[in-house]
Structure formats: structure tokens, C-alpha cells
């Protein structure tokens, strides 16, 4: 087990060094581009909603749409082949090229063709396959795999590409600038396209009512590929079909913006093959185009390759809504650091790739990178079709856990941890998934537990056996828990009779056992606003096990939490949560774990601490007893909190009390719960964190007091910065 962790760590370290800089620069550019571009779109949310509706309907009706499309393409004069898997598709495509007596096939960029590995299949027949997308061509020359589903060569710098071209082609003048490299490639590829016998494209969308394939490109190579030769083969997964031409409109508006941040790409090709355009035939250079009478051939190869089974799978189905825009990759903090060569399987990369790989290539391929999704949820609002990508990652992790090998240390754990998981689950996942149990033991035996845990032989054993990186400082358990403190001070200082509102403060594991001070501050702040606070014993939210893919355990926690909170809610009390990742459980994941009315009741009555304070102040509560000030604050909101749109309240409350607040704009701090503690991901976690460090060590944030809403964000910031950080409630604590 620890050897596998070392191998993962080595691979990530290697990619961080060799490809990290180029990947980071490009993905950050795309990510910012998306934010800017969608901000200009009045109807962004409406378009996303419509896009999701169309996809959902199309996947629901897929069998009938396949039939409609097939009839339509055949009526237009083309051929449709429905391939059951990659081998079947390749067999058909090889037949087509044989019949066309093709020596050369030119291709425009297609991830589906990568999934098929059709190039290798055609090369068996001696067909010269040439990629015409400039990025794909670079990779073909370098014999490398795409690192990004839209911009396949983002891991390569201009200098590397120049070196490659100069070595391979030995031009008279060495190539150097992007302009020179592009013009050189255009010239070379232009020749190849002119002499091609078959053109192969993918399809971003196919309309069942007209048999039109839509291709999204900026270079123009797809247009040439489809139209210059007389034979056009389009390969596409069956999920690309939408009912009608009119359904394309929202996707045209969303796909470029969501991907590389362009409002629209240069060319949206809407080809209804066989097309009316004449062939560009170099063998008849003086025949006018208008005088030709071409007999074009068109083959649409629709690929199943696991998709119809994904359609039947309640948890994987939404993967088929994916329009391959890459927003989930570009907005992912881990992806921004390592790219698709680490965060990807056999073909696909980025957050949604877990669904694709599990569905088309199998769980072994998904297993190689699934852990890189930390569930930070930053991709959720960026996906133009609203796929809950973290959920798909969680489900696949759960399925992988269930297929894992039993560990020899199992017996130790069966006794210790009260989870619902099968034996065989990775020991490291099980440890982090049961953090709550450990925390209880830790507090009960503190400070002894802290002292033992920090002993170097203990740390080295923890690193060896369960992979907790010894470079991380472990959270230190407090002997007196928050609930213990609250009881010993005699409960709430605001009597029920004097109170304006009643609150159940949710004592999450960290606040109760580790970050007890923020809990005390929260109590004092609420009291200062005339709130009657209680802190009942409520179980863990299930966030920790869920993040390890332990869905059954999380499901049981959800039921227990609801059972504990239903009565206070019905009695008119509000639930206030300090830890954003726990609130996000109540607000997002519980929708999948609880019956709908229970979920709605809990979610509607739960508030993030500052969201609640903001609400009190808005409703006339007197802020006089809170600690105001003019201090300059640098605030890092929690990733899941931002997905829920709740970070604004912290800034608003602090600003109202006079503080000068500057917010970070990185997607995630990199710690992401337990992720950064894991031996194999420590370097990656620190690399992600480095973007936040740079921002907070630079003007205008450099000398500001640092606050962060999430526990793990605070831990990460403490490792990143030379100054301390804390929860924002500490700033306004009347006792401070």
C-alpha cells in the first residue's frame, strides 16, 4: 500500500515539475476567461437550465432519437453505423477506408476517436493518419497523449514545440515564434489535407430532425477535413444526439464560454452531409468548382461503448449530459496544477472524466485518478449542463472501495470504527472517513493523545501504515470540548425569555474537539445579538466518510443528524453551522441521502454562521456589542461555501463592522479536508496552496490579518504563511 502511495507521489512530483507551469498558466487563463465571458451573458442561468433540460430529455429518449437520426441521415444520402464498442467501430471504419482505397485519412480533433484508438487501428492497414488540429498534430509528432479535452497540448510550452519542429523538420531558418510555428504547421497540414482520401471528424452535437452535425472549432481544420476529400466519416458517442436544430442555440452560446472563455469560437460548422460543397480535387486542378458533379460519401459512426449501460445507471447517467467543454477541468484547483496526465484516465480528463472512464473504459481506469477530486465542488456551478460532478466522483469512489482488496490491518479497524463500509476499503480512506471517532478518543485522552501523536516514531508509523504525511502538523485535540465548556459555564447567558431568536449551534467534530475557540467565539457573538443558544449532541454530518467515498456511512449519518435536529427545527429553532463543509452536506449532499421533505426541512432551516449573523443584523439586531474595528483583513472563503454563494455574508458583516476586507480568488486552498494530509498528495496540495500563498503574500494582501472559514483552510494557511490565520468569527468576538 505504501509503495503505491510513493509511486503516486513520484508521478505527481514529476508532472508538477515538467508540465505544471504550462498547465497552470493555460487553465488559469481559461478559467478567468470563463468568468469574464459568462458575466456578459444576460441569460446565463437560463441558458444553462435550458441546456440541461435538452440533454436530460435527449438521454431519456435516446433510443427513439437514434432511430429518427438514422432514418434522416439515410434519407439525406449518408450511412449510419451503430457500433457496440471500440473494436466494432474500428472494424467498420477500416472497411470504409479500404473501400475508398484510402492512403491517407485526415482528422479534426475528436476525443471520441481517442477513445476508440482509431489511429492505431487504421495504421495497421497502412493508412497514413494525420491530425489536423494544431495541438493534436504536435502531440502526434511528439507521440504524447492529450492533457486537456479541449486544448490537448496545453502542457507543452512554445519553446518545447519549437524544439520539436526544428528537430523533426530541420527548416532552413529555425522556428521560434508562435506565428512562425503556426504558419509552418498550416503549410504542412494544408498539403496533407489536399491529398487526403478520407476526412474524419467528431461531432459536438447531432440533430435527429435534420441529420446535421455541429462542430466547434477555431482553426478551420474541421471544415477542411469534412469538405476537401469526397469521403467524410464522423464518429460520435450516441449521447451527442439532440432532438432538433433549434436545440443547438443554447449550446452554441455556452460551449466556447464554458471552455476556453471565448464568447464563441471562430467556426460553428453545421454540416448536413453529404454536403453540397464541391470536392477540392488536386488531380483536377483546372475544373471549376461550379462545374463538378461530386458523389460524396458520408458515414456516421455512432458509438455505444458502454453509454447505453451508463444511461441505465442512476448515478452515472448524467455523465452523458456532458458536452466536453472542459469547465470542470479549468475550475479544478488540482487540475490547474497537474493537468490531464495525472487527472485523467485512458482517454478523458478533468472532473467529469471519472464518469466517462468508469462508463467506457471501466473502473480500473477511473481508479487511477478518482482520488484527485476532493469534492471541493467548485466545478458544480461552472458545468453548463449542471452535472453534479463531485457526486459522480464520490459514487465511483464508493464502488472502487467495494471492489478493493482486503487489507491485512483490517482487524484493528473493525473494532475501532463504527462505519458501514465493507472490509477491503483502503485503510487511509477508512481512517479519514472515521475522523469523528478518533477525535472523541483524542479529546478524551488529551493532552496525552497529542503528545503521542506527535512523537516521531508514531508519525513515521502513521505515514507508513496509513499515509499521513509527516510534514503536516496534526490538529491538536482540546481536553475540554466546546460542549464541555458550554455546560461548565452554565449554558447560554441569554435567557430564553430575553432572546429574540433560538439557535441550535451545530458542534461539528472540529469545532467541538479541535478548533474549540471558534465555537466559543460563535456562542459569544450570537449571545451579543440576543440569541438563545443550545449546543445539543448531534452526530457528525457524514462529510468525512463521504469524502472518502463511504456513501453508506454518510447516509446513516444524515439520518442520525436529521433525527437529532428535526425536533428543535419543529420547535422553531434555527440551526447554525460554523464549518462550511458540514453546512454544504445539509444544503447539497443531503438531497441525495434524505427523503425530500426531510432534506428540505433541514436545509431551509440551516445557516452558515455569518449568513445568520448577517440576517440578524438585517432584521434590526444591534451590532454594538460585537467587536468592530478598522483592521485590514485578507479573507479566504471555503470552496463549498462559495459554491453555495455564502461567502458574501462574511465580507458583508466584517465590512459593516468597519473592517477592510479583501477576498482571495483562488478556487481552493488545496487542503480540501483530509486530502493535503495524505502522503501521496502532499506536494500537490502545497502546489495548489501556493497560488493562495502568493496572493496573500503580495500587496495589497501582504500585511493583512488572515481569516478563513474552513478548518482545513486554516490548517493549510498556517502551513503556507508565516503569519497565523483563524476563523473570521474570532475577529468580531466581543471577548477578544
Amino acid at each position, binding site marked *: 500500500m505504501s509503495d503505491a502511495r510513493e509511486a503516486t507521489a513520484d508521478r505527481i512530483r514529476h508532472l508538477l515539475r515538467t508540465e505544471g507551469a504550462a498547465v497552470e498558466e493555460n487553465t488559469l487563463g481559461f478559467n478567468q476567461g470563463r468568468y469574464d465571458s459568462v458575466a456578459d451573458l444576460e441569460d446565463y442561468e437560463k441558458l444553462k437550465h435550458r441546456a440541461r433540460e435538452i440533454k436530460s430529455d435527449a438521454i431519456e429518449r435516446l433510443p427513439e432519437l437514434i432511430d429518427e437520426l438514422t432514418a434522416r441521415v439515410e434519407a439525406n444520402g449518408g450511412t449510419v453505423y451503430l457500433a457496440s464498442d471500440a473494436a466494432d467501430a474500428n472494424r467498420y471504419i477500416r472497411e470504409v477506408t479500404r473501400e475508398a482505397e484510402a492512403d491517407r485519412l485526415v482528422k479534426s480533433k475528436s476525443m471520441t476517436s481517442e477513445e476508440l484508438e482509431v489511429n492505431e487501428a487504421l495504421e495497421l492497414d497502412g493508412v497514413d493518419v494525420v491530425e489536423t488540429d494544431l495541438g493534436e498534430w504536435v502531440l502526434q509528432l511528439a507521440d504524447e497523449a492529450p492533457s486537456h479535452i479541449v486544448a490537448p497540448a496545453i502542457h507543452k510550452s512554445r519553446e518545447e514545440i519549437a524544439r520539436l519542429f526544428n528537430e523533426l523538420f530541420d527548416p532552413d531558418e529555425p522556428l521560434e515564434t*508562435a*506565428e512562425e*510555428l503556426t504558419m509552418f*504547421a498550416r503549410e504542412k497540414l494544408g498539403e496533407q489535407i489536399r491529398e487526403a482520401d478520407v476526412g474524419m471528424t467528431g461531432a459536438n452535437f447531432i440533430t435527429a430532425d435534420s441529420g446535421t452535425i455541429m462542430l466547434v472549432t477555431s*482553426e478551420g481544420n474541421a471544415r477542411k477535413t469534412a469538405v476537401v476529400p469526397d469521403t467524410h466519416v464522423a464518429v460520435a458517442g450516441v449521447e451527442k444526439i439532440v432532438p432538433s*436544430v433549434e436545440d*443547438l442555440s443554447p449550446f452554441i452560446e455556452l460551449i466556447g464560454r464554458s471552455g476556453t472563455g471565448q464568447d464563441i469560437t471562430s*467556426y460553428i460548422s453545421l454540416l*448536413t452531409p453529404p454536403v453540397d460543397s464541391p470536392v477540392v480535387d488536386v488531380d483536377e486542378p483546372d475544373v471549376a468548382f461550379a462545374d463538378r458533379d461530386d458523389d460524396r460519401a458520408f458515414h456516421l459512426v455512432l458509438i455505444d461503448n458502454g453509454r447505453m449501460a451508463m444511461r441505465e445507471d442512476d448515478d452515472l447517467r448524467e455523465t452523458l449530459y456532458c458536452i466536453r467543454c472542459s469547465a470542470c477541468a479549468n475550475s479544478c484547483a488540482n487540475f490547474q496544477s497537474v493537468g490531464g496526465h495525472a487527472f485523467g484516465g485512458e482517454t478523458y480528463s478533468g472532473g467529469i472524466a471519472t464518469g466517462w472512464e468508469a462508463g467506457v473504459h471501466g473502473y480500473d481506469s477511473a481508479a487511477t485518478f478518482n482520488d484527485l477530486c476532493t469534492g471541493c465542488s467548485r466545478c458544480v456551478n461552472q458545468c453548463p449542463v449542471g452535472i453534479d460532478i463531485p457526486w459522480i466522483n464520490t459514487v465511483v469512489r464508493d464502488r472502487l472501495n467495494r471492489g478493493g482488496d482486503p487489507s491485512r490491518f483490517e482487524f484493528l479497524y473493525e473494532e475501532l470504527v463504527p462505519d458501514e463500509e465493507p472490509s477491503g476499503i483502503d485503510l487511509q480512506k477508512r481512517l479519514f472517513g472515521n475522523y469523528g471517532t478518533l477525535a472523541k478518543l483524542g479529546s478524551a485522552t488529551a493532552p496525552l493523545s497529542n503528545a503521542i501523536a506527535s512523537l516521531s516514531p508514531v508519525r513515521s508509523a502513521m505515514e507508513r501504515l496509513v499515509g499521513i504525511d509527516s510534514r503536516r502538523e496534526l490538529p491538536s485535540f482540546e481536553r475540554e470540548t466546546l460542549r464541555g465548556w458550554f455546560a461548565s459555564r452554565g449554558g447560554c447567558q441569554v435567557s430564553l425569555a430575553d432572546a429574540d431568536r433560538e439557535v441550535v449551534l451545530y458542534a461539528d467534530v472540529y469545532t467541538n474537539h479541535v478548533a474549540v475557540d471558534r465555537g466559543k467565539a460563535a456562542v459569544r457573538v450570537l449571545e451579543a445579538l440576543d440569541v438563545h443558544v443550545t449546543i445539543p449532541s448531534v452526530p457528525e454530518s457524514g462529510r468525512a466518510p463521504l469524502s472518502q467515498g463511504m456513501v453508506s456511512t454518510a447516509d446513516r449519518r444524515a439520518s442520525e443528524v436529521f433525527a437529532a435536529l428535526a425536533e428543535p427545527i419543529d420547535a422553531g429553532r434555527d440551526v447554525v453551522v460554523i464549518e462550511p463543509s458540514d453546512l454544504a452536506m445539509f444544503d447539497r449532499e443531503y438531497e441525495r441521502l434524505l427523503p425530500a421533505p426531510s432534506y428540505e426541512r433541514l436545509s431551509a432551516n440551516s445557516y452558515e454562521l455569518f449568513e445568520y449573523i448577517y440576517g440578524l443584523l438585517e432584521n434590526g439586531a444591534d451590532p454594538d456589542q460585537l467587536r468592530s474595528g478598522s483592521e485590514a483583513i485578507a479573507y479566504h472563503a471555503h470552496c463549498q461555501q462559495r459554491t453555495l454563494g455564502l461567502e458574501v455574508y462574511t465580507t458583508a458583516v466584517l465590512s459593516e463592522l468597519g473592517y477592510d476586507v479583501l477576498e482571495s480568488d483562488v478556487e481552493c486552498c488545496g487542503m480540501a479536508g483530509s486530502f493535503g494530509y495524505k502522503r501521496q498528495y502532499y506536494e500537490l496540495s502545497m502546489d495548489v496552496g501556493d497560488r493562495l500563498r502568493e496572493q496573500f503574500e503580495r500587496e495589497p494582501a501582504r500585511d493583512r490579518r488572515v481569516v478563513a472559514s474552513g478548518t482545513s483552510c486554516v490548517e493549510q494557511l498556517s502551513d503556507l504563511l508565516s503569519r497565523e490565520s483563524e476563523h473570521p468569527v474570532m475577529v468580531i468576538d466581543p471577548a477578544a
Partner: protein
Amino acid sequence: MSASPIDRFTRSLEDLDVAVTWTDPSGSAETIETIVEPPCVGTPLPFDDVSVPDVVDTEPTPRSLEAAQTTVTAASMGIGAYGSVVLPSRPDGSEQVSLFTDLHVPVVRESDIVDSMADAIDQLGPRLRDGESAIIATGPSATADMGALVRGAHGPKEVHVVILSTDTEGGQ
């Protein structure tokens, strides 16, 4: 008050750094001649009383296309929100010849400029269902695959849109 489709179209083209020239049917040949860079090819413009200048070879062949610097073709629509032109695929080759030269000059009638993408797709629906094909082209061909944004990857490096005013009052 929202801008007219034509105002949006010209503003979008400005944002794309795409040149725009207005003309009317009687002045079209003369105007186009000032824009093109010879040698030029093109396809006949299917608009009443509109012609291309003699410098444009309207019966291109693979050989003349190879040598050409400029292509002049008709666009069937302009899209205000994006500054896009719609290039239909026709047996005369208008779609693909527009892709081979360094400069493309699409000619669009003022009355064919629609406001939004949805408007354009609504009009394209029946045409595509009738077996037609079209390209929604926005600005020049571009790539960033070689480390920086470069115009003219596989297609034109430059686009110059000609708007044909369709009322007798002339252009703006």
C-alpha cells in the same frame, strides 16, 4: 432601450477587430474592389442588382484558389450579438473557398442581420432540415496551440465584412 440588431452587429465586429464597410447595390462592385487584395476569387452574389468587381474570378478552380489572396462570398445572415456571418454551403463552392485565402470578404445584406443566436438558429432550422449546411463564422481563423494567439491557423487571417444597405437611403 436596446440597440438594433445592426448596431449590435457592427459593435460586435468592432470588438472582434473585424473591419466593416457599408455599400449599396449600385456601388457594390466599386466598394469591394477597394477592399480586396488580388488575386481574388469568389462566388456570384445571389442578391438583386449586386455584382462583384471584374478583379474577382467567380469561377474558381483548385489552382486559382491556391493562388488567391482574397475570397469574396455571400453571407446569408449576420448575427448581431456575436458579429458572426452565416456562410451557406453551395454547389458553387462558396463555403470552402472562403476558408483558403488570407482575406475573406463576406457580403451580407442589412435586412439579413438578426439580433441573437436563437434568431439565427430559428431561421436555419428549416434550411438544415431541408438538407442544407452552413458555417457560423465569427472573425478570422485562430489558434492558441502554439503558445500564443495567432490569426490564420487553417483559414483566413483577416475578415472584412461588407454590409449591403437594402433601402434606397444608403448606408449609415
